């Protein structure tokens, strides 16, 4: 859907695909494709993970086996480019929730079985590279837990997709929007910004320094750096 509200159907799933189960948010990965999971679909009815191009080409990547540990409920992309997710598991039938890795070619690796906790798990890769998640049940009191999973991922690289305003004099405060921007430093055409502050991992505010000239903005974090193709114009 465009910002103006124009709606385009990319792919139509069979009727009742999402019936009576969790809906997993779509993920747009670094390759530009969309990845999604359906908890109750697939040949075994225990879930699938699929790829969908922006042109609407649908490709099933992985079909979960017919067991009690399946049912994907979350999907993220790690800094290594692989997909990481969680399954719900059929606890009432003796199953367990699982944390897994899936390559974009469909190779599945079980990373951890949650023996006393229950997903639906919301996962996020922290700025330290570790995957953190929430579990709805389990923990010391059975009321759920927040957990961590270290699989040796590097710190996520920053992405800066937009900045505003795109021109201004020295001392202009510029808002940069993207992802993985925590602990950022900013340079305006190579000149360090005088003040930089984060508002979460999506926003950085940077002040145009004395001596800055028209040119790209570079954002550097512990995970790497990124330089905009567009230039900030110093007036």
């Amino acid at each position, binding site marked *: 859907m465009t910002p103006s509200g124009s709606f385009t159907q990319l792919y139509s799933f069979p009727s009742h695909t999402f019936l009576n189960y969790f809906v997993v*948010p*779509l993920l747009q990965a670094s390759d530009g494709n*969309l990845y999604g999971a359906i908890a109750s679909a697939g040949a075994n009815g225990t879930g699938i993970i699929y790829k969908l191009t922006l042109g609407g080409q649908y490709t099933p990547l992985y079909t979960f086996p017919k067991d009690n540990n399946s049912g994907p409920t979350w999907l993220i992309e790690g800094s290594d480019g692989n997909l990481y997710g969680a399954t719900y598991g059929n606890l009432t039938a003796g199953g367990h929730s699982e944390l897994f890795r899936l390559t974009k070619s469909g190779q599945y690796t079980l*990373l951890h079985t949650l023996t006393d906790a229950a997903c639906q798990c919301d996962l996020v890769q922290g*700025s330290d590279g570790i995957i953190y998640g929430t579990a709805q049940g389990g923990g010391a009191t059975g009321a759920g837990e927040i957990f961590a999973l270290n699989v040796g991922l590097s710190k996520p690289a920053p992405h800066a997709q937009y900045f505003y305003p795109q021109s201004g004099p020295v001392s202009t405060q510029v808002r940069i929007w993207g992802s993985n921007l925590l602990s950022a430093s900013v340079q305006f055409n190579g000149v360090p910004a005088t003040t930089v502050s984060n508002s979460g991992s999506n*926003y950085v505010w940077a002040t145009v320094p004395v001596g800055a000239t028209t040119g790209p903005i570079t954002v550097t974090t512990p995970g790497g750096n990124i330089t905009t193709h567009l230039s900030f114009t110093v007036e």
Partner: protein
Amino acid sequence: MIISLRACSLGLCMIAANIPPVWGQATFWVVTSMNRYGQPAGLIEGSPGVFYSQAGSSTEAALSVTAQGSKVILATFPSGDNIQSLLVSGPNGRFYSIVELSDNPANVFSVGPAAGSKQVYAPQSFVPSLTQNLPDGTLLGVDSRSRQIFGIWSNPTWMVTSHQSVSFPPPTALRAPRSMRAMVITTGLLRRAPTPKAPATSSG
């Protein structure tokens, strides 16, 4: 090889976090167990090593948790009030969501990093779910009930500033515990930041 530290102490957790596992290994540990406010949902990192989430079933709360497991309850809501969407970070360092008070209407609320920082904004005429922040600093939301309103919320009033009516295919019945889960898929294209291959930038 999988290493699990189910009941790790703070020291063990820190050790686990600081030792990079050999390729193929995964080290799991519990950062914190929930108690009064259970069933945590959503996790966003607001500053390095500090995560924000929400939890609760009968009574709900917004909270922060450090990577070392220290919890701070930032805001609580009385029984019967339901937080309708996961927290979304704003451009001002605060975190936003929707709370449906005992009955309609719903209100946007925000919390800051400190306990007691809750702000509840003016009632809305419908019950949206926030899905993500946008480059211009506004927040994007959808109405999970009418299925047709696409709201954009803006500082400083956090009221609807514009919305689009679109004809989503009607969703099937869902068993998700929070209403936002039912609708995120309809905005999935916008949920995640654009690919790093976007033409505006290059990585170094």
